[in-house]
């Protein structure tokens, strides 16, 4: 039966996914997005999910975030809930940069002085302190995504879910954001579940890479990534492991065509 799984507050597991299936729609138009997915993410672990489009990666994140309910199976998240980042920064255009970052704090009722200090600290963390008074439309795509990261961090949950957050950025900007994210995760000890179709990105960032097949989404393989930090996306270790994973991704994809581009 579906429902929330109880995850021990200070236990070793931050995200527990137990035999989760998800069917979208009803009757003849029903599409199975996820089929009996089972895995755990350890506290402080950076886990990456890769797979071709249609493997239900985004559906899974929505389920874990509680934005949607699984058809069957159970999901548990450590106390404090989750923060989420999307491919679209989804900044609120009527709020300035600092007001955007303050949003989750205000919703939680954090007192004003404490809020201001926290916002300043977070903007410092993403190197955007000089832009606190700007409106989102005045920023570049990469800067917007950094604001979105700061806002997600302000949510004060231990688990960060990222749904192809850098997919719309150019390679240089993405590189920079990888460095930022690596540094921030290191500093904060967050647990991250990162979804991407870019295998090198997954290897560059993750402690572990989970490979999903498409239609329906199934967990088919996983690799630990033992490459020491800081990593470079173009380094030999990263590209070698990415090649192995890409090979497997090709063989398990139903159609040969829509395999993710490795950039």
């Amino acid at each position: 039966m579906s429902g929330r799984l109880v995850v021990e507050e200070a236990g070793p597991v931050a995200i527990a996914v137990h035999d989760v299936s998800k069917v979208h729609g009803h009757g003849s138009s029903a599409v199975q997005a996820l089929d009996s997915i089972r895995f755990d993410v350890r506290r402080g672990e950076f886990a990456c999910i890769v797979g071709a489009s249609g493997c239900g990666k985004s559906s899974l994140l929505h389920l874990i975030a509680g934005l949607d309910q699984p058809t069957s199976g159970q999901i548990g998240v450590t106390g404090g809930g989750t923060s989420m980042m999307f491919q679209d920064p989804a900044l609120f255009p009527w709020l300035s940069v600092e007001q955007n970052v303050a949003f989750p704090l205000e919703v939680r009722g954090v007192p004003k002085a404490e809020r201001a200090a926290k916002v300043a600290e977070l903007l410092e963390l993403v190197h955007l302190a000089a832009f606190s008074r700007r409106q989102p439309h005045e920023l570049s795509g990469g800067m917007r995504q950094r604001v979105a990261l700061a806002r997600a961090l302000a949510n004060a949950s231990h688990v960060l879910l990222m749904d192809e957050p850098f997919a719309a950025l150019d390679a240089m900007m993405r590189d920079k954001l990888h460095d930022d994210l690596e540094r921030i995760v290191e500093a904060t000890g967050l647990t991250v579940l990162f979804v991407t179709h870019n295998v090198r990105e997954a290897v560059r960032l993750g402690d572990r890479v989970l490979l999903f097949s498409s239609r329906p989404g199934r967990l088919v393989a996983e690799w630990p990534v033992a490459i020491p930090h800081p990593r470079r996306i173009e380094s030999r270790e990263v590209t070698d492991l990415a090649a192995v994973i890409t090979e497997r991704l090709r063989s398990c994809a139903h159609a040969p065509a829509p395999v993710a581009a490795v950039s």
Partner: protein
Amino acid sequence: MPPRQSLLFPDRRSSDEATTSVARAAAAPELADAGFVADSARRRPLWRRLFARLAPGLGGIALLYAIWAAVVASGWRPEWVLPAPKAVLHRIWIELAYVDTWIALRITLQRALLGYAIALAIGLFVGLAMVRLRWLRGAFGGFTTGLQTLPSIVWFPFAILMFQLGEAAILFVVVLGAAPSIANGLLDAVDQIPPQLVKAGRSLGARGFTLYRRVVIPAALPGFVNGLKQGWAFSWRSLMAGELIVIIGDRPSIGTRLAASRDLADAEGLMAWMIVILAIGLLIHLFGFGLAEQRMMGKRGLLGAQRS
């Protein structure tokens, strides 16, 4: 990015350009990676923007004035039926010198604002209720649209029956004229909210009423402005219809002045009051809604797309 020398010779540039380049240079290290654009910081002075905006409209008014004057000069109708524009404008000028005129204006505007405020409250409440409760929208969504198309003057016999010839009857019709547009405008605007903003709001902990107040309503505002404007247009129309029909003895208003001109076959006064009614509706539209809308759109970076 402006050249570095501009910092050394700020006096060679106009003052606001110099400030802009200083601001840009100060932020330069951060800008290097970002391709940051600060176009919005460069703005023409207010009077020039205002002139650029108003000039075409003033040209149109001048043209209409000329056509009107030409028709009068052609002798198509005698001047006591169709007065010359100059005479009508002069009449407005004279009327503005009377205290009665200002009392009438005050009473009419008070009714308009009060009616619009009540319509706004009801429209927001009903609109939000229909956004939240799907069954309510199913049951009354079509009805609200129907009400919106119903000419509000149709309500007057009923309103007079219910409330007699008085303020309440006028207010009732003004509110009924505007509230459906506002409710419908809100529904349409909420339908068009980018879904990722609502998703982001929810994932950041905003639920229930907080989500509506802090995310849904502000996100819907650009679209909702149209509903607000239409609501104003309808309430102003309803009010004028009401003031022509419901004439209260000790309460002078623009509508009663128009009706009096009609009764006295005073064509000059008739046209003078028509122009006053047109001007008030337009001024509130331009300055009440237009400026607020521009400010909001500018803040959200939506103006550039509109202009090009």
